[in-house]
């Protein structure tokens, strides 16, 4: 639509009011300007002005032109902006006032700083124009020296002095360390156009001082529209070494010059780390290439190590061999460093496969010896053997027995790892032509470790393993080896004594005890063993009905100082009581029974002690009925206190006491009613004695009372709880065992840890095959956080009733239900078959990428060449 002079709208009359006239479509113009559409805004404003011709419409048009000129300047069209500015300035009377700030911009764009700054020397300069010039200085002026030397301003003009001071400070902070006083810069006003420069100078100084927090604080204070703000992303890149923002060439160059090329490598490594987290091959491979390229430039000496780490990470993710090797630019070196990394990586994985890990540690050992890390028979080699043996302790014994044959049949070794290796690496592998699978035998590993570095802990581990997993001959062999290697240790002698005693070879046992006594007669273990052996020997003679020998034994027992401690004399009298029962002397037997009652302070305790002494002597039920009165179930003295006291006595003399079946109900009742004040050891022993006759409810009640006591004994009662739980409470028992071990760790109580481990191993060995074991979550680490530990403790303390609901067996493990974010159960609940072990081991020989996908897990293979 065209408008001409004739069709102009009459201006509404606003005489004497001073009010401005509303312009038709003015809002549309302002909307267009707000959206940055300056050209259509100018067109529309021109049409409006043609139509109206009012001062208000002219002002609107000039504003639209001003926006247009700014837009042209922003896009670099300086000449066009200048021409338009001059045209508008010439044509419209309103332009002089409304285009003042735009005029400053146009002058600045011409690059003529003097022309831009000259008006500042005029004290009568309008405030708007001054502000406009200062805004340009703040946002566009990067050349401080030009400002400092600007001839258009007097030499003492604040802008010149501030620029000169900043210039000096900038040079100082980028040349070397500076004192804080150099950063005060009183010449620079914090409200002036160069205030952001002052902040930048400080930020740079803090950056070089490695005070990154202060530097970052400074960067946040810089006006984002100011010229110094251009350095913010560069400084942030150098602070964080991150690849968050792409920099211009000068920025990249500054980063390289300040941080060296390491920053590119750091950024590449961070990107690779993020790619590994995605586990997406397409993202990982290009980042591997970038990281390797950056490392070649920045740290060529680290290249091989980086390759090895990337190789192991890629193996862990089961990435295709050839692609990774191509990205790495060649195979990583399979030296000791690689094998150590690889074995450790597999060992710390969620589902470690112990035989393969041992094979990897063996590769490490070979290379480490060849590379001079340590000698073949060094302490390091011994420690490694011991470590491998420890790993194998987690494999069930029946799986261990078949392991070497399965391994030999299906696993051909790591030959493919060596195909692209330098001769020096291949030579190491070639040296071991004869296949020796010693690393799959804990016995062989312990033997090697103990031969090289004989010490107590190693022999203890070996003996514990042999005692649990082999027959007595193997365990005796270990004890004999221990005694030969460390003849001053009494422990192997005590073991041999106990072993001989169990087989009824009392003469041999006595001989071992005498040797131990010669070594260390004051050792509490030796003293305890002497008491136990004499008690066992007395029991044997009682069973053999040889009272004259019993008399000798009792005389020897009474001569032992350790037999006179606590309630032990009462048990000696109980043995005498059994001897008189065998002799048929009812009067003397009754007198001894009374004496025991006096010593133990309770007739119930006396009866309990005699019941167990009688069991040891092999008395018949008729003997008991004749010589031992029935205990009253409503005695004045507490049944529970008496039983607990005698339970401790049984532990003291090394006799496996049991509680008469008829007492269980009464004991449980008293215990749950809180009758009798028992010490923690009494409670624990009572629980243990109850478990000997499978009285789990009674043991459970003892654990309830013990846990209520709290304190240092919590671990012992958690372990008692684990033992007392019904068979089907598998997960809850595991939680109790784990919590016991964690508490034991924290309180440095190795005996409770060992007891808990024995219980755990006992459960593990009940599993039928390797894959039951794999699936049984026995892999889990026993370590617990404080929160987890407290949660288990609280749960057990609150669970005061013996569990009777078998349906509870299907619940999720306690710790998982409480602490795992993802409670989604594994859908892969198809059981493994025994054939799977062959399949798995066979797969180890297949190159990656050719294997069938396995739902459950994949194995480290020997086709990993990168």
């Amino acid at each position: 639509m065209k408008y001409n002079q004739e069709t102009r709208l009459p201006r509404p009359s606003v005489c004497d009011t001073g009010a401005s006239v509303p312009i038709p479509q003015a809002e549309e113009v302002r909307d267009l300007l707000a959206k940055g559409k300056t050209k259509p805004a100018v067109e529309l404003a021109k049409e409006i002005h043609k139509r109206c011709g009012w001062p208000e419409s002219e002002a609107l048009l000039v504003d639209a032109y001003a926006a247009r000129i700014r837009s042209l300047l922003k896009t670099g069209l300086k000449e066009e902006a200048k021409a338009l500015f001059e045209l508008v300035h010439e044509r419209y009377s309103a332009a002089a006032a409304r285009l003042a700030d735009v005029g400053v911009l146009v002058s600045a764009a011409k690059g003529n700083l003097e022309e831009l700054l000259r008006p500042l020397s005029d004290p009568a300069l309008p405030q708007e124009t001054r502000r406009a010039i200062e805004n340009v200085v703040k946002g566009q002026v990067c050349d401080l020296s030009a400002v400092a030397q600007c001839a258009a301003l007097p030499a003492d003009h604040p802008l010149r002095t501030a620029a000169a001071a900043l210039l000096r400070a900038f040079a100082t902070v980028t040349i070397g360390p500076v004192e804080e006083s150099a950063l005060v810069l009183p010449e620079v006003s914090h409200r002036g156009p160069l205030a952001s420069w002052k902040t930048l100078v400080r930020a740079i100084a803090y950056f070089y001082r490695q005070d990154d927090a202060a530097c970052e604080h400074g960067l946040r204070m810089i006006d984002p529209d100011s010229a110094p703000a251009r350095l913010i992303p560069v400084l942030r890149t150098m602070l964080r070494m991150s690849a968050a923002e792409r920099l211009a060439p000068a920025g990249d160059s500054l980063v390289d010059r300040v941080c060296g090329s390491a920053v590119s490598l750091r950024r590449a490594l961070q990107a690779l780390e993020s790619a590994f987290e995605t586990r997406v091959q397409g993202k990982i491979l290009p980042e591997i290439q970038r990281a390797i390229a950056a490392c070649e430039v920045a740290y060529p000496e680290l290249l091989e190590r980086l390759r090895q780490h990337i190789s192991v990470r890629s193996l862990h993710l089961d990435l295709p061999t050839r692609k990774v090797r191509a990205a790495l630019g060649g195979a990583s070196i399979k030296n000791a460093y690689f094998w150590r990394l690889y074995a450790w990586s597999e060992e710390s994985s969620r589902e470690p496969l112990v035989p393969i890990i041992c094979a990897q540690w063996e590769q490490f050992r070979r290379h480490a010896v060849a590379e001079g890390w340590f000698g073949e028979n060094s302490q390091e080699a011994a420690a490694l053997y011991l470590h491998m043996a420890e790993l194998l302790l987690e494999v069930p014994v029946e799986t261990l027995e078949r392991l070497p044959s399965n391994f030999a049949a299906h696993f051909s070794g790591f030959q493919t790892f060596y195909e692209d290796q330098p001769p020096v690496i291949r030579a190491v592998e070639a040296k071991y032509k004869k296949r020796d699978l010693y690393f799959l035998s804990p016995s062989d590993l312990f033997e090697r470790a103990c031969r090289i570095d004989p010490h107590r802990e190693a022999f203890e581990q070996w003996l514990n393993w042999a005692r649990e997993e082999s027959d007595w001959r193997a365990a005796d062999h270990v004890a004999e080896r221990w005694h030969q290697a460390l003849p001053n240790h009494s422990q192997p002698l005590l073991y041999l004594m106990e072993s001989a005693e169990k087989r009824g070879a009392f003469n041999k046992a006595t001989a071992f005890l005498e040797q131990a006594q010669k070594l260390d007669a004051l050792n509490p273990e030796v003293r305890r063993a002497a008491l136990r052996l004499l008690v066992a020997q007395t029991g044997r003679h009682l069973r053999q009905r040889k009272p004259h020998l019993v008399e000798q034994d009792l005389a020897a027992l009474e001569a032992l100082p350790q037999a006179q401690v606590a309630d032990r004399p009462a048990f000696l009298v109980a043995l005498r009581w059994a001897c008189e029962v065998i002799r048929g002397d009812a009067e003397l037997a009754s007198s001894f029974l009374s004496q025991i009652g006096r010593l133990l302070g309770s007739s119930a305790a006396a009866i309990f002690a005699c019941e167990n002494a009688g069991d040891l002597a092999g008395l018949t039920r008729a003997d008991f009925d004749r010589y031992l009165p029935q205990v009253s179930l409503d005695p004045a003295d507490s049944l529970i206190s008496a039983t607990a006291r005698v339970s401790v006595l049984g532990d003291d003399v090394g006799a496996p006491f049991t509680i008469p079946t008829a007492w269980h109900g009464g004991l449980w009742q008293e215990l749950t009613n809180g009758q009798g004040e028992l010490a923690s050891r009494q409670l624990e022993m009572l629980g243990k004695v109850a478990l000997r006759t499978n009285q789990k409810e009674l043991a459970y009640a003892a654990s309830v009372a013990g846990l209520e006591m709290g304190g240092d004994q919590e671990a012992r009662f958690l372990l008692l709880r684990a033992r007392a739980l019904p068979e089907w409470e598998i997960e809850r028992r595991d939680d109790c065992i784990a919590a016991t071990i964690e508490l034991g760790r924290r309180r440095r109580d190795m005996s409770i840890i060992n007891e808990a481990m024995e219980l755990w191993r006992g459960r593990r060995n009940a599993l039928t095959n390797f894959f039951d074991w794999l699936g049984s979550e026995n892999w889990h680490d026993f370590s617990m956080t404080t929160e987890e530990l407290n949660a288990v403790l609280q749960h057990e303390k609150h669970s005061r009733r013996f569990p009777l609901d078998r349906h509870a067996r299907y619940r999720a493990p306690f710790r998982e239900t409480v602490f795992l974010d993802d409670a989604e159960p594994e859908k892969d609940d198809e059981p493994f078959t025994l054939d799977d072990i062959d399949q798995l081991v066979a797969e180890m020989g297949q190159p990656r990428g050719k294997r069938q996908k396995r739902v459950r897990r994949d194995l480290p293979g020997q086709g990993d060449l990168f």
Partner: protein
Amino acid sequence: MKTHQRAKIQLNEDPREILGVPPDAGDERIREAYLQKVKENPPDGEPVAFERIRDAYEILRDPRRRALYMFLSADPHAPLLSLLPASSQERKFTGPDPWLAVLREK
């Protein structure tokens, strides 16, 4: 479960570097270095540094623990950045020109 105890210092840190002893240093040399470092970083003045020094010494003083540490000291799950030497964090003074070049760049 692993029966070995891990040190409080990071696995990728070399206890020998912390004490400043060469790889082939024996018990005597390790002890001397430890005492020297403790003098420089007393528990009251530099508790954090002292803890690290003590942890490093705890690893190195026991030959068996020292050996075990050697096997487990390369952490395959440690960030790849930890492979870079500490000197990779150095910041070089360049003078004002490269800084001003960034400001001048269009």
